[in-house]
Structure formats: C-alpha cells, structure tokens
C-alpha cells in the first residue's frame, strides 16, 4: 500500500516504524530535515521536507497515487487542511488525521464530507488517557482492551504466588465466561491449551464479555482494593486529560513543575489538587502523602523523569506505579521490575491506525507486548466457498501457529470460542496473534476470494 505520513514527531515516527515492517511504501513529510534523516537512517522509506499542508509538498510526496494519508503533525489545522486537500484535489481514498482539540470533534459536520473529509480522527493523548483510566477502574489489570464496540474486553493480569491461577492446568480453570487466550513467561509465549500450567509471574491474557470483567478479575486475582487516591506526575496534555477524567470519582493530585502550566491546569480542573514542584521532589511527595496513594502515574514527556519519579514513589510507599516510557529499550528494562506497569505511548496508540491499513475487514487492532503480539477484531464475510473462515467450525480453520480465536460476536451476543463454535458471515471474530510474522496469513483468512466479489 502507498502511504503518505505527515509529521515525523513521536506519533509519526512510531506509525512509520510499524508500517514499514509490513511491506508498505511510505513517504514521510516534515518541516524538520533532522528528524527525517534520523527516521531514514532506521527505516526504508522516502522523506520530503516541507510544510505538510502545502499542495506542492503533497504532490512531491506522491499524494497523487497514495492509498492512504496519515496526517499526524502537531497542528490540528495542518492535519485538517491536508485531509481536505487530499480528498478534493488528489482523490486519496482514505484519510486519517490526528485531532487534539475536542471542539473539532463536537460536531460531525466538521470532519464529515461537508467539512474536512477526515475518515478517522485519532487523538493519542486520549487513547493513552483511556488506557490509564481503565487501569484505575480495574486495579489488578496490566491492560484492558475493548473489542466489538465495548462488548468484549481483553484483560492482562499477572499471576502471583498463591493465587487461584498458579500451578493448575488451564482445563481446570476454564470458566463459562472467560477464555485465556495467551500466556507469556518472560519473553516466551506459551500456547494456552488445556495442559498448560501457569506459573508465578506469568502475564495472562483473558478474554471475557465486558459485563463480566469485574467477576473475572475477582476470580483471577486476590481482591485488589479499589483505587481511591491517585497522584499524577506531569501536567501535560495527558496529565490534564487524565486528571479531568478521574477527578470526579477519585481523589486526584497532579504535580507539574512549570508555573504557567500549573495555572492552566488549575483553571481547567475542578476538584483535582494542582501542586507546583518537581515530580522527583521527595519532600513534596512526602508532604502530599505519597505513602497513601493507591496509584502513582508518571506522564511527563521525559522518560528518565517518569522512571525516576515512579521508582521513588514506589520506594516511598505508593501501592502501584504506572509510568509512560517512550524508549523501547527502557520498557524492556523495567517491565515487571519495580514499576508495575510501563506504558509505551507508541504501542498503545498505534492500534487504531493499524486497523485501517490491514487487508480484510479489520475493525480493531491492539498491539500487545510492545508490538510482538497483536489482538485483532475482523469481520467474516462470504460463504463456505469464497472464504476460508465463514461457515466453518473453529477446529476446521487452518490457523497459523500461535494464533487463537478467542471469541465471536454475533449481533449483541458474545460467544466464547470453542473448538466446535461455528462462524457465520458478518460475525466479528477476535483473534489473538502471538507472533506478528504470521499476520499476513491471518489477514488472508478474512479476505474473500475474487469469485465471491
């Protein structure tokens, strides 16, 4: 697929990175030649220096025969203009834009056909905020992901010594509403068949109907106390959104070192307490009762700062610490260490984009384990003749190794997949792929053959 990416910032780079590995022709546009050069050094792609909303620059980037435009510059307005131009002047079939300001999203017309022709708007800050809010709502989870418009959830939990999971075979655990779709032990993945045994420290991925998540969590983990007090380190875009999302139901404190930014935070926030100071200031943390915090979230834009403040918070008694970490090497270094959850912004936000570049009717993609594994939701089409998945029982489908069909959503009904579950046309199928290299084969399963079309 020919893809033009506007903006080579954090989002643009990580998008380019994950798409480059999937055999796409990428062109990245940015104002900053330095950033482009850095990107080109690492990845096989073309770069164009210039203003991303100027038609001449777009032409130079080959927008004329592009299949997809991904506008992820810092500026909402540039992204909007680029999408509009791409649609009206260059007939680009699909356009994705990064939109931060919620004002643009308030009215459908702004992004619709009469407006800026944006097919899909993404807001990485909002995605990350939702991610963290889920962690607050489900205190035992490492990650909670939604499928089928929120009907099905995928929860990652860590098995701990003495818990109900450890030391038993999966077939003994299998409850009615929940299905364990993957187990990770260190860097290895273990096929979750009936004989598999979970050990202490394993990362276990369970699929369940969203309504049952709480019960499932209770079964899998010791009763985790609900979160009441949250401290947020860093009052940037994510910190602010997070505080706004949490302040009504939880006691929220937010630390920010910039005075001016603090004033903005205090103006935009209602009940949350805005504190001026360094996130690694021991005295400040002590004074504000870090030892009583149920959750400490470090969301500054500085990896080292996030790591240090999280470690400090954990040492000083915060029950659980979550840290935003951009650099992949750091994430690998820290996960499962003292920091309870390390979130990679790029991986967390890339899923929405990936769903749009996949072949087959893919509705949602969630990148897991720093991109090594993937959970995707795709729609089955056609019939037994034209498709390799429709009208077949699960055990009849030729799945690549390391791939599990977790659940099927038919209308409003959620069905946990068993070997004898039959898949109908228009079913949403949730597939868990443990090895990303097998992805093309999974995608092919969901494509209907030409004869059908």
């Amino acid at each position, binding site marked *: 697929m020919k893809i033009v990416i506007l903006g080579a910032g954090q989002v643009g780079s990580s998008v380019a990175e994950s798409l480059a590995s999937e055999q796409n022709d990428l062109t990245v546009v940015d104002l900053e030649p330095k950033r482009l050069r850095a990107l080109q050094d690492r990845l096989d792609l073309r770069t164009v220096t210039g203003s991303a909303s100027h038609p001449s620059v777009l032409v130079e980037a080959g927008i004329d025969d592009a299949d997809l435009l991904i506008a992820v510059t810092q500026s909402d307005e540039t992204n909007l203009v680029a999408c509009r131009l791409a649609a009206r002047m260059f007939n680009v079939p699909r356009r994705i834009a990064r939109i931060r300001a919620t004002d643009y999203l308030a009215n459908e017309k702004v992004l619709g056909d009469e407006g800026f022709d944006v097919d899909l708007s993404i807001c990485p800050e909002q995605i990350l905020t939702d991610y963290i809010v889920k962690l607050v709502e489900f205190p035992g989870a490492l990650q909670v992901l939604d499928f089928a418009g929120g009907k099905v959830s995928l929860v990652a939990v860590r098995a701990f010594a003495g818990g109900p999971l450890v030391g038993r075979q999966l077939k003994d655990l299998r409850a009615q509403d929940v299905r364990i779709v993957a187990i990770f032990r260190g860097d290895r993945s273990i096929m979750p068949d009936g004989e598999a045994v979970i050990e202490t420290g394993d990362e276990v991925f369970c699929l369940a109907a969203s309504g049952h998540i709480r019960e499932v969590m209770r079964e899998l983990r010791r009763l985790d106390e609900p979160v009441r007090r949250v401290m947020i380190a860093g009052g940037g875009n994510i910190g602010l959104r997070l505080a706004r999302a949490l302040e009504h139901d939880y006691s929220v404190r937010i630390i920010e070192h910039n005075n001016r930014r603090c004033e903005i935070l205090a103006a935009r926030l209602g009940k949350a307490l*805005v504190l001026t100071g360094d996130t690694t200031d021991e005295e400040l943390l002590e004074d504000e009762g870090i030892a009583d915090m149920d959750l400490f979230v470090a969301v500054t834009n500085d990896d080292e700062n996030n790591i240090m403040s999280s470690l400090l918070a954990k040492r000083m008694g915060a029950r659980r610490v979550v840290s935003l970490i951009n650099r992949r090497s750091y994430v690998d270094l820290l996960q499962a260490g003292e920091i309870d959850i390390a979130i990679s912004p790029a991986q967390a936000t890339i899923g929405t984009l990936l769903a749009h570049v996949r072949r087959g009717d893919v509705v949602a993609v969630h990148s897991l384990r720093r991109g090594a594994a993937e959970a995707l939701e795709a729609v089955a089409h056609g019939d037994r003749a034209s498709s390799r998945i429709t009208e077949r029982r699960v055990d009849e489908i030729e799945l690549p190794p390391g791939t599990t069909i977790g659940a099927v959503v038919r209308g409003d009904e959620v069905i946990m997949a068993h070997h004898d579950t039959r898949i109908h046309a228009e079913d949403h199928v949730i597939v868990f792929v443990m090895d990303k290299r097998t992805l093309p084969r999974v995608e092919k399963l969901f494509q209907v053959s030409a004869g059908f079309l």
Partner: protein
Amino acid sequence: MRRFAVVLNLVAVVTMIFAATMLVPLTISLVIDDRGELAHAAAIFFTLLTGLLVWMLTRHERRELHTRDGFLFVTLVWTVLPAFATLPLLIYLPRLTFTQAYFEAMSGLTATGATVLTGLDALPPSLNLWRSQLQWLGGMGVIVLAVAVLPLLGVGGRQILRAETPGPMKEKQLTPRIAQTAKGLWYVYAMLTALCALGYAWAGMGWVEALTHAFSTISLGGFSSHDASFAYFNSPRAELVAVIFMLLAGINFGTHFLAVRGRTLRPYGGDPEMRAYLGVVGTSVLLVAGYLVLFGVYAEMPVALRYAAFNVVSVATTTGYATADYAAWPIFVALSMLLLCTFCTCSLSAGGGIKMMRALLMFQQAFRELARMVHPRALMPVKLGGQVVESHIIFAVLAYMLVYGVTMTAITLVLTGTGMDFLTAFSASTATVNNLGPGLGNVGPAGTYATLNAFQTWICTGAMLLGRLELITVFVLFTPAFWRK
C-alpha cells in the same frame, strides 16, 4: 473649572430627562383627578427650567468625559436628582422639612424604601406612584436609562456605567455597543415590571396601585402606598406575586437579558451566583419558618411558611416590604434576616448589599487560605462558574469589604453617638447602607425614620447614597489623587 462645567452640562441633560419622567405621575393625577396635579406640574416646571438654564450656561463645554470625571458625574447626578425629586412632596406636604423630603427622595432613588412619612393611605395615589417610580428609576440606574435614551456618553461611557452598576466583575459585555446594553437591560427591566403589574392586577389591586407596587417590587425598593405595607392587602395571591418578582429582580439582569434575547433558559444554568442566591434564600425561608413554629410565633407550619417566605424574601432581596412586624419575632430571626440583606442579591440586579458574587469570592478566598496551610505547594485559584477569577479582582473585593465594614461600623458608631439605642443604630446603619429600608427597634417595619433628628437623618441619607453607588464611586471623590491635575 472647565472640567466641572463639562460634568455640569451632562448633569443638566440628565436632569431634563428626569423632569420628563415626572410627566407620568402628572398624567395619572390628571386622569384620576386626585388633586396632586399642581404639585407635579410645578415640580416639572422648576426642574426643567433649572436643567435648561444650567445646560445653556455650559453648552459650549461639551466634550467627552474622562474616566475620573465619571465618578464626579455619577455622584453629582445621584445627589442632585433627589433634590428635584423632593419638589412634589414639599409642595403637597408643606409641613415636611427639606431634610426629611430629601431623605425620602434619596430612599426612593436608591431603592431603599425607608420612609419618614405616615398616613400614606391618605396621600394622592399619584404622589405614592411618584415615590415608587423614583425607586424604579434608581433601581436599574438613571444614568443607564439616560444612555439608553440618548447617545449621552461616548467611549468613556462604559467606565461611567461601571461606576453606577453594582457588582465586582463588569468586564463581560452583553452587546458590542454600550447603548444597546443599556437599552437591553432597561427593556428586560420594564418587561418584568409590566408582568409584575399584571400579576398584582390579577391579585386584585387597582391599576394605579398595581403599577405603584410593581415599580417598588422590581426595583427591590419597598415603598408601598399603605402604612401597613403589604399587610394591608392580606392576600396570599398578592404575596405570591410579590415573592416571585422580588426573587426575579434579585437575579443579575444581564442573565435575564441573555435569556430573553436567546429565548432559552440556558443562561440561568450558567450563573453560579444565581444558584447560590436562590439556595441561600430558599434555605433561609425554611429555617425561619421552622424556627417560628418551634418558638410558638405561629402555631401552624403553612402559616409560618407564608409569613416567613414573604418577609425573608423581602428582606434578603433588600426590598423592605412587610406582612408582619418581624422586629417582634425572636431577635435571632430578626438579626439573621438582617444579615441576609447584606449579601444575598446578585451583581447587576436591583438589590443592594455586597452582592452574592463578592460573598462567594470571599468565601472561596478564605477557604483557599485554609487549604493552603495543609498543601503549601498547591495552586488553588478562586473560581466562579468554572472560570478563574483574576487576583486583582480578589484584591478589589477585599478592599471593598474592608471599606464596607468600616463604613457600616462608623455609621453605627456615629448614630449611637447621637444618643440612639444600639439596636436601632445598628439596624438603621445596615438597612440604609444595604438599601433595605426598615430596620429593627425604632426604625422597624412597624415604625418609620420620622423619629430621627435632622443630623441622624442626614447620616442615613448619606449611607443610602454610599450603599447604592457601592461606596468606591463616592469615596474616590475624597481622595487627593482624584483632584490632582
């Protein structure tokens, strides 16, 4: 001196407009033939003549006013107009001293409602209407009216209107043009008055009486054409209408204006001041009613509720009507009601006092200082309706509160110094500075201010002026900086 002439010229214009408003009672007097027409006609003639004369003498000095001239202009208008307003009273009631007539006129124009007159029932209806009309003119502000009628003030006009309208935050503009804003406010004000008059007519009042009371209700003034005030009617219907419209008039007229212009109730939802105002008044009514039943003033709850609702709303909105001698209620209730009148009404409403907005800001500021003890590094801005209130406004409000407190205390002290008993002095000071009207003790709802001697009367007159112009506008004239070239 030229500066003074410019101001005088404008005052003369306002005086002539004021003379024109006197045509209303004259017309009514002629229609219903109540023998008051001579007093009105003579007053109009004299007022118009003086205005014209001063205008002729100063007409070459027209130029735009500076902000600092505005304070002088506003204060002059508010001291000169009551003097002319005394004319119908002085002509019709030759026994009245000028001091008392001026007090009565000032009480009218500042929408206070304190009176020195007895035997109101025997006065010509047109004269009672004139008293109420004075309150009505002063309630929204005569200069606001003048600006609405004539393009009187240019660019500097906004500052001048700020000197006349009450409230701590006046930056928000309702319309792009100042004359439009003035017109809009008066339009809503007049509309509410018309509705209120219709309500009173429905409750059984004659039309002159209905208009008289509508004028003093919407302006939150409180003059009545009966010595017994609202108790004269003894009509639950009339009381209901009065309570509803007093409550409405206590809300920011800017909010009313936005609601009327947009034909939506949404502006009310976005007015945190109004929520607090209605909450405090509503709670107070219930508490007072409960207390009155508990202490045996009224035997039954519905009766207590009726009297509590009317009198508490009347006092809290600084109107000053009465259906019961609440000074005779337990002193705790009477003093609590007096406390309510100091802060309940909203800014840019017709009411007096420090305004709910300032009270809210002060409350939050105090709370913030306390919270800062626990969280020294926290940033806690004072907010109103989700908007951060800038610190310079907080400081202005603090300064205002100080001046307010000192003024109240000083007036109370001076009055006790003249031999007045403490309760009368304190309540008279509160009732005049907050433009309420009746106080407690000798000046309670059952009595009048006629018992005061001339000096005491002048003190109270000054207090009403200070309260209506929110102190600062007047006090600024007494600073050396104001007079420095």
